[in-house]
């Protein structure tokens, strides 16, 4: 099927192209990008006033399958991702069984292929069962299609194991994605440790429990020469370390999530467990530092950390609720409403941090609107105002702090390998 996208405003940092162009998609590839294309197409999209980005790639998501299909499945997860404008999703390995061998990786890829929705990129575990004890078979994981390794949710506690993991991953040229948390410092914590946790009498997770491991992992990356990607950075202290490491030439990239850019620990005063995630929402100062870091390039990627949990597990006393929120369907809207509209970054920057950079870090031939590229395209109406309603959530779980929120900016179409998914 040929698709002609007429007169949209294109942001394509990979090809240094920005402006009003037509795009002709044919046989799953971008055939032509030019002003006023005259061609027959079975589907024509009038994209006047719309923002056209290279297909968004979420570097950090949890699809829950295999193991917790009650909370999310590959099918519901990828549908939700498409709805949110993501053409590609990285699935973190904290499933049951864990993605630490080729069987699980192959299962994920096969299932995603049959579904024909968004692209799925499995992330393998650093260590077997994510226990931090023995390295997983990374070469096998890579051959099976894993694009990176991570013990997501668990920090590799043993510094020697982390060193060997970095060395081994370096040999295979795989990035290591690190969830940085000193679990002794954050033990029993349920929110950021600061004035608000003091007021509420809640056990805190101090910012230093994150930054202390960021510092360690940066040192190890420098020592081994390996590539490290710091997952979901939440605090100023980590940013200062990453900024300094980049200046020094250490091969580090980093990500944050929409919620850390727009919410603070003050929200926990509602006792609503949809404000409970790990790392926790931190202070306004941290939020501002993250915005500045996004602007100055210290933060390379915005990921969602989409973490579905069923209502009966989440709708309990704050201490007992699991960490995490869903994010596929609100990421673009949050970034549009609170970040792009407030001139913190531009849509061109969004194309970089949500498509081009993730593709580059993961070694994917994606993130480009150049002629001949895979036709992965996200079309956004930057002006549409809408309210995020619980009943319209595509994800199987509904644990979002943004329900009821009014947004400006909405994904209209997501095109994956030339297949169009209307919203």
């Amino acid at each position, binding site marked *: 099927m040929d698709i002609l996208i007429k007169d949209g405003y294109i942001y394509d940092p990979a090809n240094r192209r920005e402006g009003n162009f037509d795009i002709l998609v044919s046989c799953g590839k971008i055939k032509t990008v030019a002003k006023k294309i005259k061609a027959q197409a079975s589907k024509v999209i009038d994209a006047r006033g719309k923002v056209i980005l290279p297909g968004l790639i979420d570097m950090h998501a949890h699809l829950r399958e295999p193991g917790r299909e009650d909370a999310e499945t590959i099918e519901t997860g990828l549908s939700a991702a498409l709805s949110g404008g993501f053409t590609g999703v990285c699935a973190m390995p904290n499933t049951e069984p864990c993605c630490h061998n080729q069987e699980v990786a192959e299962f994920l890829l096969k299932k995603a292929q049959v579904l024909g929705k968004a692209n799925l990129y499995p992330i393998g575990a650093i260590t077997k069962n994510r226990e931090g004890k023995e390295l997983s078979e990374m070469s096998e994981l890579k051959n099976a299609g894993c694009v990176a390794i991570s013990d997501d949710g668990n920090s590799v506690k043993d510094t020697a194991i982390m060193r060997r993991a970095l060395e081994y991953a370096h040999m295979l040229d795989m990035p290591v994605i690190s969830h940085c948390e000193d679990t002794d410092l954050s033990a029993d914590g349920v929110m950021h*440790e*600061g*004035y608000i*946790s*003091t*007021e*509420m*009498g*809640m056990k*805190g997770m*101090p910012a230093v429990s994150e930054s202390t491991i960021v510092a360690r992992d940066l040192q190890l990356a420098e020592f081994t020469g390996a590539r490290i990607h710091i997952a979901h950075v939440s605090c100023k202290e980590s940013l200062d370390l990453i900024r300094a490491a980049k200046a020094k030439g250490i091969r580090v990239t980093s990500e944050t999530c929409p919620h850390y850019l727009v919410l603070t620990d003050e929200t926990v005063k509602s*006792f609503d467990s949809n404000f409970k995630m790990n790392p926790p929402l931190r202070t306004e100062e941290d939020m501002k530092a993250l915005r500045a870091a996004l602007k100055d390039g210290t933060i390379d990627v915005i990921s969602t950390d989409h973490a579905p949990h069923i209502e*009966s597990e989440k*709708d*309990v*006393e*704050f*201490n*007992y609720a699991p960490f995490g929120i869903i994010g596929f369907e609100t990421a673009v809207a949050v970034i549009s409403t609170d970040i792009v509209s407030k001139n913190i970054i531009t849509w061109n920057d969004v194309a970089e941090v949500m498509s081009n950079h993730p593709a580059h870090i993961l070694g994917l031939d994606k993130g480009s609107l150049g002629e001949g590229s895979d036709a992965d395209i996200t079309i956004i109406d930057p002006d549409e105002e809408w309210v995020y309603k619980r009943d319209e959530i595509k994800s199987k779980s509904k644990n979002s702090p943004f329900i009821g929120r009014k947004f400006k900016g909405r994904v209209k179409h997501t095109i994956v390998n030339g297949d169009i998914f209307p919203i």
Partner: protein
Amino acid sequence: MATTTLLNTQKKESRWGMTKKNVIWKRKDLLGLEDLSADEIALILDAAKSFKEVSTRKVKKVPTLRGKTIVSLFFEPSTRTRISFELAAKRLSADTIGITANSSSVLKGETLKDTAKNIEAMNVDVVILRHSTPGAPHLLAKVLGPSIINAGDGAHEHPTQGLLDLFTIKEKKGTLKNLKVSIIGDIAHSRVARSNIWGLKKMGADVTVCGPSTLMPVGIERMGVKVTNDLDQAIEGADVLNVLRIQVERQKKGLLPSIREYINLFGINRQRLKNAKDDMLIMHPGPINRGVELTPDVADGPCSVILEQVANGIAVRMAVLFLVTGGKE
């Protein structure tokens, strides 16, 4: 009607309270002192003054809450608070049922919300909740029709304890305004400290918190209190010392080197009180670790109002039950 009598008594004794304003109690629940205004706190204290007399009668009962059902749901062990609420309810002629449950039963199956919904279905009027998790009563207040009274939620708040402390101080000193109150001990884990701080600050008192740095929560000074690690400084010039219970487990968690060292630095004995004001009050929310935070001679000494706090607890809880079930002034 006893209610009317009580209200009349209250009016006659208005000198006890602040200058009379027409404060009306509108709240369904009592979740914490953070949410209350100074006027609302004064209203409770005024009402408690009236109710205190009931417990001294030969027949310690008024029909105020006749026909009301009150359920106390204690997910944490408690003797004093549970009995105090139960007596308060009974002296108001309410029907009471107490349920104690292990919080682990929540993890086993029924959620707190389900438990509470079931209780609601039995048409109760008030649920008194003690729970180890901050915000548990707030969660119930959002979904339940009956009034919720927070009887302690983790280290967050213990509003009736705060109120009975305020009541005791006011009864002894006549006012709370400009009084110097020092709270001593494990501030980080104490809901009593937090409710006291909110209540005392709203009523115009000057609050100092004192304890080891490992038990002092981050940013506590933003609650409007002075912070010190020096016990002598906290005692000097203080009108009230509110001494908190220190839990022996804190040593195992690496928060204290030893109880012995804690006693040396923060234990209150007669010697440490030599520079204290003569009329300084010693308070403690109980249960006391005798010889740890207080030596027996101080706990039982002339400055101690610890047992009066216990007696006042009933009056304050009667007042709270009366107000949340619709008592109006």
